């Protein structure tokens, strides 16, 4: 039974595998046989099976949809190029419902029923943290794509790595030098009053102080709040920059009310695109963002000077100039994060090739091979940019984009360096046993 519980991915352009199947069938003039996978050069060996812990349902479903499309595109590219060690890549999807308890069950299922080589692709932090103990206990590599600080904090275990996307601590820190040099040194933080907002507060404050700036006020907003006008008077008049990281359904209301409050005379704005990921910047209510700046993990909008490998990545995943689906202009992608799936799969490939991965007995060797990684050059495998992996903290560091809203689109105005976000290791997973 479980042998058939697999999603064999070889689809094109990051859309559904079904689209691809149809396309492939037509191209080859064949009806796909049971199993239907054509692996290009990699057709003779047993596939490498990757368990994709996907947020198909629950609160993360909108992200899950794009993580799945990116994963599909990346897997196809790897297979078209001959697979991993000559073996085809096969992705097995299980839905975790964006639920930590189910996440742990899914990891267990991957290990014991599907017998995959590793688990990959989790986004939401609470699911990562909920699933990590199961991965450690079952001794199965767990490659997450979550941008959480939980991996680098040392609180997980040796099987958990985050090599394809930077963490929030590095992201927040890396913004400070540019903000201090270009927008102003007196910053007021507006953030939701819980862990996500607290992380930004705690990571950004020392970083801006190190640049000679200061946080002149902190305005925590209760998570259930949906009207914000009464909080704006707490922003001191000396404020030069508002650093905002609001999330949730009331973000649009937040921006609209901020615009009504400040009009044309307010401080400069700096935000994290997490607030508006997958939301059209030209949506009504967001007009006030024109001219403001955002962190982006990877640019949503096609940039005039982007490298060829970025163009190729965007085409493969299936996003247009505006970062929306090429087949559905209203379906805006989660561009600032989903590249992490693409890069993580390529790192998995590199690690498996480095340790000459043969099967599940080599899982520890695969982790060691990942830990041994250092610099990764920007290119087709790493379209978001250059990265440096820290084997001790199992966390990658990288360049970030700072973009300005110009005519309702995000235009990259600065790329931070890896050093801007780097921080001293606070854990050493390599000292832990397998």
């Amino acid at each position, binding site marked *: 039974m479980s042998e058939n519980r697999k999603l064999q991915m070889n689809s094109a352009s990051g859309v559904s595998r079904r689209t691809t199947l*149809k396309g492939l069938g037509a191209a080859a003039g064949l009806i796909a046989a049971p199993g239907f996978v054509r692996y290009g050069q990699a057709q003779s060996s047993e596939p490498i099976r990757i368990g994709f812990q996907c947020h198909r349902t629950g609160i993360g479903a909108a*992200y899950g949809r794009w993580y799945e499309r990116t994963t599909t595109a990346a897997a196809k590219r790897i297979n078209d190029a001959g697979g991993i060690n000559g073996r085809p890549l096969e992705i097995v999807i299980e839905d975790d*419902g964006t639920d930590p308890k189910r996440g742990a069950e899914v990891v267990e299922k991957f290990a014991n029923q599907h017998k995959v080589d590793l688990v990959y692709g989790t986004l939401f932090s609470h699911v990562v943290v909920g699933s990590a103990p199961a991965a450690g206990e079952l001794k199965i590599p767990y490659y997450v794509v979550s941008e959480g600080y939980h991996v680098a904090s040392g609180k997980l275990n040796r099987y958990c790595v985050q090599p394809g996307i930077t963490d929030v601590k590095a992201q927040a820190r890396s913004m400070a030098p540019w903000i201090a040099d270009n927008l102003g040194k007196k910053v007021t933080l507006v953030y939701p009053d819980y862990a996500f907002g607290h992380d930004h507060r705690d990571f950004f404050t020392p970083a801006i102080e190190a640049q000679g700036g200061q946080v002149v006020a902190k305005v925590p907003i209760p998570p259930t709040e949906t009207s914000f006008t009464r909080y704006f008077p707490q922003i001191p008049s000396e404020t030069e920059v508002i650093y905002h990281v609001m999330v949730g359904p009331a973000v*649009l209301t937040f921006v609209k009310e901020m615009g009504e409050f400040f009009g044309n005379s307010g401080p400069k704005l700096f935000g994290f695109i997490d607030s508006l990921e997958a939301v059209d910047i030209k949506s009504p209510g967001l007009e006030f963002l024109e001219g403001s700046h955002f962190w982006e993990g990877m640019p949503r909008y096609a940039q005039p000077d982007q490298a060829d490998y970025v163009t190729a990545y965007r085409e493969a995943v299936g996003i247009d100039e505006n970062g929306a*689906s090429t087949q559905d202009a209203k379906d805006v992608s989660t561009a600032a994060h989903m590249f992490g799936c693409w890069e993580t799969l390529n790192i998995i490939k590199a690690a498996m090739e480095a340790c000459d991965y043969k099967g599940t007995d080599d899982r520890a060797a695969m982790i060691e091979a990942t830990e041994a990684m250092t610099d990764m050059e920007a290119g087709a495998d790493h379209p978001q940019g250059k990265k440096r992996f820290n084997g001790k903290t199992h966390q990658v560091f990288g360049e970030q984009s700072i973009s300005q809203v110009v005519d309702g689109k995000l235009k990259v105005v600065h790329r931070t360096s890896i050093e801007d976000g780097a921080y001293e290791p606070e854990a050493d997973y390599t000292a832990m046993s397998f």
Partner: protein
Amino acid sequence: MTGRIARCGAAAFAACALAASGGPAWAHASDRGHVLLLPTHYYLFGGMLAVALSFLILVFLPGEGLGRLAGRRIRLVRLPFDGRAGVSFLSFLCLAGLVLAGLLGSRDPLSNPLPLVIWTLMWVGLTLAQGVLGNLWAWLNPWYGIWRLLLRAGLPESGWLRLPEGLGMGPAVVLLFAFAWFELVYPAPDDPARLALAVAAYWLFSMIGMALFGYPAWSRRVEFLSVFFGMVARLSPFEAVRRGQGSVVLYAGLPGHKLRGSAALPVSGVAFLLLALSSVSFDGFMRTFFWLDLIGVNPLEFPGRSALVGANTAGLFGMFLLLCGAFLGCVRLGEVLAGGTPVRNAPGMLVWSIVPIALAYHFSHYLVVFLINGQYALAALSDPLVRGWDLFGTAGLYVQAGVALGAQSAWIIWNAQAFAIIGAHVLAVIIAHLIAHHLFGSARRASLSQVPLAILMIAYTVFGLWLLSAPTAG
């Protein structure tokens, strides 16, 4: 293995505390964000006004004339055959195929046809079709055909056993609650394998019940889908009347005309209809910031369904009790206001007016799911076992999530939802009024009896619109 899952679960639970200081848990800006910017409070006020005005107009309209109008129907066509058994048997074969796909197909609930057919095409699509087209379920249910085969093999038509009269529709109420709990509270209702087992077990349980107690009794009092779909179909303008052996005559009238003439429901039947409405209401309510705040959950850090099983079970039951209390209280108060001779089983008659509201809630709450997952269903049905088939030419369908995304879609969807909610409440007021005329005799007594119920309808209109415009998570 169970032990390990339990350990992993405990680890997951413990780890939630760690997550709180670990990093971001994003709350998607979501399309409710666009709705929050719409002037929804005008709709709430307008809806309230529309329902109140409808009631006032009815007070001054002659009830008899309206009753006559509602009673009119025209004969459409006579079908020379009754194909229920054949269609039902085919439906059984399809269900068996779907269960097989649930066990053997993709583990992805958006690629496996079983969860998509059960939750999207059946629970959402078929319910709406029943309300518009009539009792398709009488043909499509997967038991009738097999039961007819069993009759041929010698099974007595009314089975061997009798359901105790005192049970009424009680078993159907319990099963509907179990179903609603599985859909709304259970952590993994979409998991193809678990759903396949649940569907197979329920099919078998019902088939045995139908064999032992007879199809008619079981489908009217125990099999909750037949009870629910049958009730919803009474709103449809179409009516199929069996004329002798093997022929069916199709009539058409005004929407809801069948409700007026429906027999009074027993207490358990009243409970069933109110549970149907309250469960869909709770589906909306449990996602609101209001509810999450009430149970101490940060809506921006939604912990997943597993953490909310206890609270949501209590909420689902609580909303049912609250609606029962409000409805029965209003009917009783109406009887007191109307005075005169007490009426026999007024709640059992008046509860039929809830049907249009239940249907409108269904439409409004599941519209977005239907638009998106309906597309996934089309794709999955073409390739149910993920073997590269393209049975209906839809396997390559690109799911257009954009139909429900962005400010423009939010505006269209919100208006459709608001129109359905308000329209259904106006219809409910009319139906309740007609039933009251029939029950209380005089126009004065009927109008007086309806004042509390009309107030409840107005309140539920506002509640319904608020549910669809309030900030939500999960």
